[in-house]
């Protein structure tokens, strides 16, 4: 089964481990779901849907659904960065800032 979990995770700037921690799953679960090795059950799908604020249908669709503004071409391996200021774990808001910055650079390239 193909799904949008990887895209949604990357859009939020989360690693597999971070997403797993937020949802009470293991990193291996996330990895398996993303590559389609195993399928999440309905409870897990609901967790994903609530967390990403999208429908279960969207998660399962291998789609170009327009219901959220997704820019699928940001891959975690694509970019490196350095942020000014004290080095500590990035908050979700900082990650969102970073993703926005990357989108802007990509548009300008």
């Amino acid at each position, binding site marked *: 089964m193909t799904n949008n979990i990887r895209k949604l995770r990357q859009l939020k*700037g989360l*690693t597999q481990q971070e997403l797993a921690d937020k949802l009470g799953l293991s990193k291996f679960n996330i990895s398996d779901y993303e590559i389609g090795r195993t399928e999440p059950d309905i409870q897990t799908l609901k967790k994903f849907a609530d967390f990403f604020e999208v429908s279960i249908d969207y998660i399962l669709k291998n789609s170009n659904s327009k219901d959220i503004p997704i820019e699928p071409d940001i891959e*975690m*391996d*694509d*970019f*490196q*960065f*350095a*942020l*000014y*200021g004290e*080095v*500590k*774990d990035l*908050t979700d*808001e*900082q990650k*969102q*800032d*970073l993703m*926005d*910055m*990357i989108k*802007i*650079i*990509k548009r*300008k*390239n």
Partner: protein
Amino acid sequence: MNRIEILIDKIINNDIKYIEYDTKLITAAAIKINKNKAIIVNKNKFKDSKDFYVTLSHEFLHCNHDVFYNMEDSIQTRKRREYKIDKLMVQELVPLNEFKKLLKYGLNKYEISEEMDVTEESVDLAFKIYKNMGEL
């Protein structure tokens, strides 16, 4: 041209994109996407022109020395890389000989920052780094 404009020119001439953007939290970042490098700053977040200049210099050094990290890198790795850039920045903006001379004259942090036209935080950083290097 003032020194900030000169630095921005230098950034652009080094094939690095310079982008001003209204970020929510991040003051400045150096970002490398594939082989393309960019510096993004939110000008509204700087205290003054010294702060802007020091930050821009720091981000330029990241790009120039190709020192970045990724989401999977540990805090330790990030700290090590930031330290490397801080060290280069201090050596460039607060040269040791001049710094030593001002310390010898008994100038305080504020006075040194005024004399060298850098932020007080840079003076603190210089003191820490030169001390770590065994120079002070």
